[in-house]
């Protein structure tokens, strides 16, 4: 879990918080979220590697395009 903890020095908490937020907004942490989901709901199967996961995400975006705002 990259969420800010409680018993760590302020500087490190700020750094961790910033990292957690940036990874969230850019979407980088989607892979960790996927791993967490797989671990909980399908512990029996091997999850995709990071590279396979992102290839899948991009392939999915190719099939379901989303507009950008003007």
């Amino acid at each position, binding site marked *: 879990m990259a969420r800010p903890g409680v018993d760590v020095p302020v500087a490190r908490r700020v750094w961790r918080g910033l990292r957690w937020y940036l990874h969230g907004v*850019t979407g*980088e942490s989607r892979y960790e979220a996927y791993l967490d989901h797989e671990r909980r709901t399908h512990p029996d199967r091997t999850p995709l590697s990071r590279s396979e996961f992102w290839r899948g995400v*991009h392939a999915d975006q190719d099939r379901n395009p989303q507009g950008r705002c003007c």
Partner: protein
Amino acid sequence: MRGPHTPLEEPEMSNDAAPTVTPERELPPVAAEPGRGWTPQKIALWAVIALLGGVAWTMLAIVRGETVNAIWFVFAAACTYLIGYRFYAKVIERHVVRPDDTRATPAEHLANGKDYVATDRRVLFGHHFAAIAGAGPLVGPVLAAQMGYLPGTLWIIVGVVLAGAVQDYLVLFFSMRRSGRSLGQMAREELGRIGGAAAIVATLLIMVIITAILALVVVNALGESPWGVFSVAMTVPIALFMGAYLRWLRPGRITEVSLIGFVLLMAAIIGGGVIADTAWGAELFTLDRTTIAWGIIIYGFIAAVLPVWVLLAPRDYLSTFMKIGVILALALAIVVVRPEISVPAFSEFASGETGPVWPGALFPFLFVTIACGALSGFHALIASGTTPKMLEKERQTRFIGYGGMLMESFVAIMALVAAISIDRGIYFAMNASAGATGGTVEGAVAFVNGLGLTGVNLTPEMLTSTAEAVGEESIVSRTGGAPTLALGLAQVMQGFIGGPALMSFWYHFAIMFEALFILTAVDAGTRVARFMLQDTLGNVVPRFRDTSWLPGAWLCTAIMVAAWGAVLLMGVTDPLGGINTLFPLFGIANQLLAAIALAVVLAIVAQRRTFRWLWIPALPLAFVAVVTITASFQKIFSPVPAVGYWAQHAAYRDALASGQTSLGSADTVEEMQAVVRNTAIQGTLSIVFVVLAIVVIITALVVVARALRGEQLTEHEDARVPSRRFAPAGLVPTAEERELQRQWDALPAEQQPSRGH
């Protein structure tokens, strides 16, 4: 292109959120009790906010001395937003939306680890904001400054509270209740076949117009600007490098590659300045507008047929980074620098319809010129896209939907402040069409000083020294809004960081920032339009439904690129100035999309039988319908040639028939023929838009009438699934929510809900 087969794509995956571990003990409540209500501290806080807002509005609207300090814009906006968010949005929540936190959101009951992922509300706010913020709220307010600062400020701030944020909030919530269905799908379900089909055709046309006019803004910003052309062109190799890095070197390391990309982007801006100074660089990269337009058309086609990982995805990462960074920097700069504004509250053009920046009277054209920032129909497409699939709890829709739009409005206010902080003479010299200024410094000085504006005395030195300060050959007739905003932003930012020496850097930084969004919007818009076209053609030739069939994909992409490319070229070569004639069409298109979204929302609210509160979506719908239909009618029927497309068309046709060889700013017979052709296309588009919007609004009103008569209509909401997780609703948790959060945090790890990390 097909991705590798992943287990995520299996259909049985769609409903697998039930934890495999049996709960060992009872879960804490999933919804917090309402707060304790008003305490003296809270009353005092809101009284202070209301007072400060009142003082700020008094300074802007009533006192308005010789100059107004920019800080009052910030206070008026922030205080009004806070009050709108705390009071009006709460009323909407309680009576119209009625969220139920004991009900699972799609992110919970359809969780698949991929697109349906419950995401922390603060992260989702950033994600949603980055998706809705684009070039629109930056450009519209700049052009609206022609009327003075007050009309635009009022519409941006009041409009967002009563219209724009309401639309975003309601569309987000209703889409969430429908597993994140798109606006088009909701229109088909709620309005029936005719209304749905009209909504989809309107969306497709609107997409084409918006793409074309956004591209026109970029072309106008880059024309005859070797620095701009070089640095914006460099974004392509930078994006290609980022795409390759993410594909092969370090898959999924987005933050890292975004930082690298950002550094490269800064290098491209600095490098552009160096190269534009060399003789070969200036020669190679000084391109006329038609060449740049063709460049964007070719780029648009190639980018839209390539897989997203090559260009689109990396560009997205870059623009998210730039967006959040620049907006924070601009907000900070305005608060620190606090420029004095000498633009009048209402300008000399506020009561007429012949302003040099765009023609038409304040009502209705101000309300279509500032589309994004106050009310943007395009947001309805985003609010019914990825965001509803990531909401953790139903009550968070107010923070994400309503709050996100308030942020966008704040961006528009800052763009307005930046634009009005530059000298008014320079503002009009930059934004009057080349037909009026002749494109020369002398012509611009004569034209602007001839406008008879009080307190404006433009000198040739002002124009040449400003152009030199920002590293451009000339700033005369740089229409489209982007260069004006860039100049305003450069002026504010140089007072904050770097001083005059960095003026040209900030100018090109701002141009790059806008071009980046717009080129991404062009690429993504072409893709979406292509899919919509393929879906429509699929009704006749089923083969087109298969979006991975290359000939179909290429053909449909080519058709969509040709459609917006034709409008773009028409704008670039228009003897009457392009942006001036086309921008109203852009605003009308965006606002008609808002009318369609609000009509769909109105039908849904009526079907939920909350008739007493039907006015909440009806109010913005009525306003936007009146504005856009009036604007369209004026564009179609106005006898004033500058305002009415057909009046202009007739004037030029008659002039040609009587053998004239020049009229207004068209100097040759060919140019006159171009005006005849362009006005016919613009006039026809106006008719098509308004007819489609009227069809959608009428079908929505029919649905409302049927609901009022007591007819039981089909329920399209997802079935209720009980929620098994908890999260606070707003940015700052209440005492009750904090207490509940403690109980959840105390659970063993395997019983805690999984949250997009």
